[in-house]
């Protein structure tokens, strides 16, 4: 069953065609990566799929109607720096309409999962970049979504924190979540089942990492040759 879909999606901002007939279809339980340069359209694509932007043409899933089944972790840190970890979690849980008891029960489990249990009282602004990304992930999981959209979750994060973050992504993948992750790092999307190269709003190529790598040693080398 297809859980995440973009079908001939077009999105323009004024004269700029940010997405130009983009297709992708992520089956249930799969981990897909969208990779491309800055301004390739990755964030616009995720925001369209999440129903946060209206598409000019085409169709998306889950979209606005399916937002309750969706966890969306946007690029950068958008939680409240001057609230503690626990206060952020409680606030986001409230926004999802969860009761304080339900948030509290699930938050214990999620903070332990993310290795943040002993940072509950820390101000979010004082966490390292890697921990902030994990907190963002925790907040996007509070309502038990089966589908996750992760927008450049490890940009600017150091290699060890990146590894720890990927450990969480892999655990969610193993547990059956359907995940679409956008990244600017080619070595990162090599970990996905399936990769979509996005360039200037178009899908340049799509396939398994092995297919796309072809005779090249890395995905990045294959991409550079394809675009040169």
């Amino acid at each position, binding site marked *: 069953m297809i859980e995440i879909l973009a079908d001939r999606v077009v999105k323009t901002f004024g004269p700029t065609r940010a997405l130009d007939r983009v297709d992708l279809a992520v089956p249930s339980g799969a981990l897909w990566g969208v990779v491309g340069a*800055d301004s390739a359209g990755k964030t616009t694509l995720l925001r369209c799929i999440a129903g946060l932007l209206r598409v000019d043409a085409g169709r998306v899933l889950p979209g606005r109607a399916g937002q309750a089944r969706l966890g969306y972790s946007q690029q950068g840190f958008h939680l409240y720096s001057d609230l503690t970890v626990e206060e952020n979690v409680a606030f986001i849980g409230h926004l999802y309409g969860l009761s304080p008891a339900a948030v509290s029960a699930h938050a214990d489990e999620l903070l332990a999962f993310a290795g943040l249990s002993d940072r509950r009282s820390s101000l979010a602004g004082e966490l390292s970049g890697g921990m902030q990304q994990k907190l963002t992930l925790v907040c996007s999981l509070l309502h038990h979504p089966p589908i996750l959209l992760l927008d450049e979750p490890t940009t*600017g*994060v150091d290699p060890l924190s990146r590894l720890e973050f990927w450990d969480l992504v*892999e655990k969610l993948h*193993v547990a059956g979540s359907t995940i679409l992750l956008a990244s600017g790092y080619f070595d990162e999307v090599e970990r996905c089942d399936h990769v979509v190269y996005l360039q200037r709003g178009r899908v340049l190529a799509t396939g398994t990492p092995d297919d796309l790598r072809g005779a090249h040693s890395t995905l990045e080398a294959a991409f550079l040759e394809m675009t040169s």
Partner: protein
Amino acid sequence: MTSAVVTEGVSRCFGRRLAVDRVDLDIVRGELFGLIGPNGAGKTTLVRILCAILRPSSGSAHVLGFDVTTEAARVRPLIGYMSQAFSLYPTLTVGENLRFSRELYGRVPPGRDRDVCRLVGLDEGDLARQVAHLPTGVRQRAALAAAVLHQPQLLFLDEPTSGVDPAGRRDLWALLHRLATDGTTVLVTTHVMAEAERCDRVAVMVAGQVLACGSPAGLRAATDTNIAVVDARPWQHAYAALSARWPGTTLRGTSIHVPLPRAVDPGSVLRDTLSEVHVASITAAEPSFEDAFISLVREQQLAPRA
């Protein structure tokens, strides 16, 4: 060969926190040198000491033959610094920013702007554009142009490719190699291990100390890690069992990569852990530089501190 940077036992405290801890480095002139390590490892503090912005608490540091503590004013005109936070004025054009840098440094020869623009690949059109509206790759090239305008002998770059697209990253590294070939010593900090591998030598910093220093190939060969690639069904069960037993286990699609000590025979060790699943194959892969880096840092974190 003469040294561009020599530090002997350099330390720096902030209150009771030791940010840089007895660092010894010797960077040769014309070398492309990488400084890598997790956040909070002390990389930026060390670079700021070498730029004569911060004084060391103890030990000594010489840059291009001058002591950074007692001869700071002689060090500064000889170095260039491109910070991680973008350091040009967003409301000015590229050309106006370069003019500002030129007047700040004073002794820039005529025609140097044009040479620098050619070097970094900026054209007349780029010079007229407002910095705020440039793509990240072009902005980084403009920042590099401003940092090398006064022909520094030693160039510091803090995460220069953050947010730059793959073709832009490739071009920037080609440029850094060209600068190094022309005799400029380049010191780069980076989080991206695939990039660190392009340096002549790298120093791995953790908790203020330099853990290892050498060529990327040498560091890779020196770590006690091999990667076993496991294909098993169901892969979810295999991953759960392996990651519980072997920390650092990762997924590549549905293949599982397990870092193991070199002395261990992957077949026998992993098949014990995988008794509940069907194992299609176990093969060996060379560790990447990132694997080697992580293994080094983990070994250090487990070892008792000196």
